[in-house]
C-alpha cells in the first residue's frame, strides 16, 4: 500500500493524475464553499449578467440566463461523482458475483450467465443506456439505473477470466480437498486475486462514468435542467459557437480534466499492481 503510494507520487504523470483527481474530488465536496455563486446550481435567472465572457467575478463567463459557469461546473462535478460512486457500488458487486459464479461453478450456469453477459455487451453501451433512459423518465435515479445496467457485464468479464484461470491453481484445489464449500472458495480464495484488477478498473471507470453520464445528458437523456451537468452545458452552448465559446469550452475542458485525471491514476495503478485488463 505504502509502496504503491510512493510509486504513484514519484512518477510525474501519475502525480499529475493524483493532483487532478484530488482537485476534482475537493471541488465536488466543497462546491458550496468554493463556488462564488452557489445558488446558480439551481434555477436562477440573472438577465442583467447573461451570456458574459469570462471576467471577474465570473471567471468562466455566464450562461444564457446569467448563471456563473464556474459555479455550475463545480456542482456538476459533485453530481457526476456521486453518480459514479453509486453506479459502481451497484455494478461492481453484481458483476463480480456473476463473474465468480460463472467462472467457478461452470456447466450450464456458466453458459447461461455468459450468454446473458454477451447480450448486454452486444448493444453499444451508449445505445443501451439511451434506450433505457428513453423509455423511463429521464431522472437522476433512472440515469443511475441505465448506466448501471450497461456497466456490470464488464466486471463479469474481468472476474470471469481471472476465475477461470485461478480455479485450476493449487491453492484452490487445496481448499477443495479440505472440504471448503463453493462460497468459501469463490469469495475467500479466488476473490482476493481479482482485487487488483477490480480496483484498477474501478479507478478508470469512475472517469468513464463521468464521460457516459455527460454523453447521455448531452443528448438530453440524462440529468435534467436545472440540475447542472457538463454534457448538457456543452449541448446548450454548442449552438452559440464560436461567438459564445465559453459556454461550451469550459464544461468540455472540465470533462477532459476530470476523466484524464482518473485515467492517469488508473493507468499507473494498472502498471504497479500488474493487473491485467
Amino acid at each position, binding site marked *: 500500500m505504502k509502496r504503491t503510494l510512493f510509486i504513484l507520487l514519484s512518477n510525474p504523470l501519475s502525480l499529475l493524475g493524483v493532483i487532478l483527481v484530488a482537485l476534482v474530488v475537493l471541488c465536488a465536496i466543497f462546491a458550496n464553499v468554493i463556488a462564488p455563486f452557489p445558488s446558480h446550481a439551481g434555477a436562477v435567472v440573472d438577465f442583467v449578467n447573461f451570456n458574459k465572457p469570462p471576467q471577474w467575478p465570473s471567471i468562466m463567463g455566464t450562461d444564457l440566463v446569467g448563471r456563473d459557469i464556474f459555479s455550475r461546473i463545480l456542482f456538476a462535478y459533485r453530481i457526476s461523482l456521486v453518480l459514479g460512486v453509486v453506479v459502481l457500488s451497484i455494478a461492481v458487486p453484481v458483476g463480480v458475483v456473476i463473474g465468480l459464479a460463472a467462472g467457478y461453478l461452470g456447466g450450464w450456469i456458466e453458459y447461461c450467465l455468459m450468454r446473458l453477459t454477451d447480450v448486454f455487451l452486444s448493444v453499444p453501451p451508449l445505445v443501451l443506456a439511451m434506450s433505457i433512459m*428513453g423509455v423511463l423518465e429521464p431522472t437522476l435515479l433512472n440515469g443511475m439505473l441505465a448506466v448501471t445496467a450497461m456497466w456490470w457485464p464488464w466486471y463479469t468479464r474481468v472476474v470471469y477470466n481471472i476465475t477461470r484461470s485461478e480455479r485450476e491453481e493449487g491453492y484452490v484445489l487445496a481448499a477443495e480437498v479440505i472440504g471448503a464449500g463453493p462460497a468459501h472458495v469463490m469469495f475467500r480464495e479466488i476473490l482476493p486475486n481479482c482485487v487488483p484488477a477490480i480496483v484498477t478498473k474501478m479507478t478508470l471507470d469512475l472517469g468513464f462514468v463521468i464521460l457516459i453520464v455527460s*454523453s447521455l445528458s448531452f443528448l438530453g437523456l440524462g440529468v435534467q435542467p436545472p440540475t447542472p451537468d457538463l454534457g448538457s452545458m456543452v449541448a446548450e452552448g454548442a449552438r452559440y459557437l464560436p461567438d459564445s*465559446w465559453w459556454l461550451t469550452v469550459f464544461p468540455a475542458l472540465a470533462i477532459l480534466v476530470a476523466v484524464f485525471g482518473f485515467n492517469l491514476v488508473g493507468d499507473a495503478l494498472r502498471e504497479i499492481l500488474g493487473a491485467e485488463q
Partner: protein
Amino acid sequence: MTAILRVLLRRLVTSLIVLIGVSMLIFAIARIIPGNPARIALGPNATAEQIERLSAALHLDAPIWVQYGYFLRDLSRGDLGISLYTNRPVTADIAQFLPATLELVLVAGVMMVAIGLPLGVLSARYRGGAIDNAIRVFSLLTVSAPGFVWAVILMLVFAFFVPIFPIAGRISDSYSIPAVTGFLAIDTLLAGDLRAFGNAAWHIVLPALALALSGIGQAARLTRANMIETYDRPYIEMARSYGFPEGRIARRYALRPSLIPAMTIIGLDFASMLGNAFLVEAIFAWPGLSRYGVAVILRKDLNAIVGTVLIISAAFLIVNVIVDLLVAVINPRIRYSQRSA
C-alpha cells in the same frame, strides 16, 4: 480454409442467438413504459375509442409474449412496424438515415486503424523515449473525453479559428446529388461529379476525426501494450540474432503476433462508434441516425426505438463477426486447428 468457414458459421449462429436476446431485452424494456403508447402517439385530444382501436391494432392489449411473437413474425418479413413519430415504416426511416451514420463510422474506423496502429508501433519500438511518452500522453488524453468534446474542440480550432474545414453538414448546398445508395462517396461518383465527391470528403474529415480520436488512442495503447509483450518473446530475439533491421522486426515480426489479441478489442471499439456517432452528429449537424434516434426516444416511439436499437446491434454484431474472421485469417493457430478453438 474450411476452418475459416467453421469460425464464420459458429459466429453467425451465436450472433443470431445474441441478437434474439437483444431483441427480447429491448422489447422488454420498451414495454415497461408507464403510460399507453397509443395514447402518447395520438396526442391529448384523442377519444377513448380511437386509443382503443390503435391499441388493438398494435396488439398492446395482448400479453407481452404474444406481442413479442407478433413482433418476431413481422420482423421475419422485414417489417419493423410504423413509426408513431413520422407515420412511416420504421425500415424506411432507418434506410434514409443509416447510410450517413455508416459512412461516418466507416471513415472514422479507417482513421482509427490507420493512425492508431502506427502510433502504437512507434511507441513500443521507442519504449521509454520521448516519442513513446508523447504518444502515451496523447492517447490517454484522447480516451479521456467523449466524442462531442472533441467535436467542439476540433470545430472551434479547424473550422472557426483556422477555417480549413466546413463547419457542418455532409456536403455544400450548391451540390444536388441524387440519392441512390445514400452513401455520398458512392452517389457522387455515380453522378460522375468529382468536385462533389471532394466536397463531401472535405465535410467528413472533422466529424470522423472527432468520432475516431478516442478510438485512435485506444488502438495505440492496445497495440503498444501487446507489442511490448511480443518484444519479450524469444522469436524476436531470434530475429535480432539474424541481424534483421529493427524497423523490419517491428513491422514484420512483432506487429502481426501483437495484432491478434489487440484486434478483437479494436473491433469492439470500432463497433461502439455506432453508438458514439450520436454524440458527434449532433454537433456537426450530420444528417444521420442520431437526430432520429433521440427524437423517437424522447417521444417514446416504441417501434422506432426497438427498430433503431436492433439495427445498430445487428451492425455491431456484424462488425464483430468480421473482426473475428480477420483474426482467424492472421492467426494460423485458428486456421489450422482441428477443432476451432
